[in-house]
């Protein structure tokens, strides 16, 4: 590698650090700012009132809790349903595999505003309009799409010989799942739970349409605060949205490394 190439690479990394970290930095500073008037580059004083409001204000806390409950429930239910679906499709014929993949990608690709318009009427017909259950059902659709694609990918490359060997050695269906499949699937399951959580955690359009404004979540609160000019609170809310997402990504990477070590 020439000296010029090394210099270019170092400069690109520096630029990358600035571009990636600047948006996160501005959220941190704004969320802690007080009396930050134009054209000051830094706030005159710092305070944590936006963060206190986020946690202690009953309305914001309810929105945060709704987001957490929706994210966790969507993650668990979508993973539980997508795993057998992805596995059965991957072990089936090519046509079935591709049909299921097409359906799963459609669930992901449909514009939320278009899908949500239809789902809103469906949920209203079921008597679940404006309820957290209705919003959960709507979040489940794209989450199932993403996770079916994940498990389809996992099981398309799956080596069946381990299960067959376990069966030959007398392992029952339950024992094969408990002793062979689940330990090997720990990494994809953790990643699927993380992805399922994030799909619901970041959802705006479906919550807005199906919840009809009655179900408050953190992303909707952030948009409302931004539109009412509460930049400090909106920044705190945006960071509160980003932090669990970054933690979930980090945790799934750690879990993946641990699983790799266990499997090795």
């Amino acid at each position, binding site marked *: 590698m020439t000296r010029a190439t090394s210099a270019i690479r170092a400069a690109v990394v520096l630029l990358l650090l600035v571009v990636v970290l600047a948006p996160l930095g501005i959220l941190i500073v704004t969320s802690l700012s007080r009396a930050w008037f134009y054209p000051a580059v830094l706030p005159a004083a710092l305070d944590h009132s936006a963060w206190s409001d986020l946690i202690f204000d009953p309305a914001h806390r309810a929105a945060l809790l709704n987001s957490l409950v929706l994210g966790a429930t969507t993650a668990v239910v979508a993973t539980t349903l997508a795993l057998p679906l992805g596995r059965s499709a991957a072990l089936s014929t090519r046509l079935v595999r591709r049909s299921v993949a097409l359906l799963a990608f459609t669930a992901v690709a449909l514009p939320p505003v278009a899908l949500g*318009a239809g789902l809103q009427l469906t949920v209203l017909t079921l008597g679940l309009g404006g309820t957290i259950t209705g919003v959960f059902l709507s979040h489940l659709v794209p989450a199932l799409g993403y996770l079916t694609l994940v498990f389809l990918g996992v099981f398309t490359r799956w080596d069946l010989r381990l299960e067959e060997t376990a069966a030959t050695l007398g392992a029952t269906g339950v024992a094969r799942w408990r002793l062979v499949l689940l330990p090997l699937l720990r990494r994809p399951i953790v990643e699927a739970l993380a992805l399922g959580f994030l799909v619901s955690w970041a959802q705006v359009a479906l919550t807005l349409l199906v919840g009809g404004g009655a179900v408050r979540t953190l992303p909707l609160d952030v948009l409302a605060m931004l539109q009412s000019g509460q930049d400090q609170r909106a920044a705190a809310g945006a960071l509160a949205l980003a932090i669990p997402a*970054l933690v979930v990504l980090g945790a799934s990477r750690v879990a993946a490394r641990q699983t790799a070590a266990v499997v090795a």
Partner: protein
Amino acid sequence: MNSSRASGKRTALPLLLAGALLGVPIAAGVGYTVAGALGLVGNAAPGGLLRVLDDAAVLRSAMLSLWIAAAGTGIALVGAVSLALLFAGHSRLDAIARSTAALPLPVPTVAAAVAVLLLLSQSGWFSRVAAQLHVIARPADFPALVYDPIAVGVIAAVVWKELPFLLLVALSLQSLRGDALTSAARTLGASPWQTVRLVTLPLLMRGMAPSIIAVFVFVLGSLELPLVLAPSSPLALPLLIQERRQALDAASRGDAYVIALLATALALAAAVAHEWLRGDE
């Protein structure tokens, strides 16, 4: 007999599961949108396809949304491929570059939009820096980078959010492919640039095509980015659908379902193209 029964079960089970879990909600969603377009549900009058296609506001909205999706995906793609080619090695710098670039991946779109607004608006941080440097005298002197007609702010947020995904796909393709083909090209006398242009890039583009379509469709349908950063005239397509659905006259509400159906048709075409390009991985 047993073998054909097992084979039938292997085919029927995934189809039944997929039909119940994915097909039913999609069909219900699309079905109700069709019914809305026909004025049967949703308190709407029948929407007119020709009226919608002839509506200049719809055309301008579609053009803005297509521009945002194309420019955002294109810039993210160029950035991702460049980074993948520059930092595919095993040094510490390569690892730092890859980890840094991947950081925005899980950040929710709303958070990215708020951050871009705080940085790029006319009273945002870059404007403050320009004012401190006496480049501008007041916020209005700073170029409009959000709510602007060419949607610079939205495109910046798209690139920040989507580049990491495309980078991970490019890196994964490079690692799966290995360096046998590039080594062969170099052995046959190709220069490093020729190897990149004639071997690496075509292979990467072919492998990345489904992901590029996925990003394009995702950006096209995104509500939150234009809601925070895009101009109010013309409205991005998802916002136009929302606006017409909430209109007072029933005809506009019917038209909203027709526009939603057109967006759905575009997404379905993209889904088919995605599966066709993806092959049987």
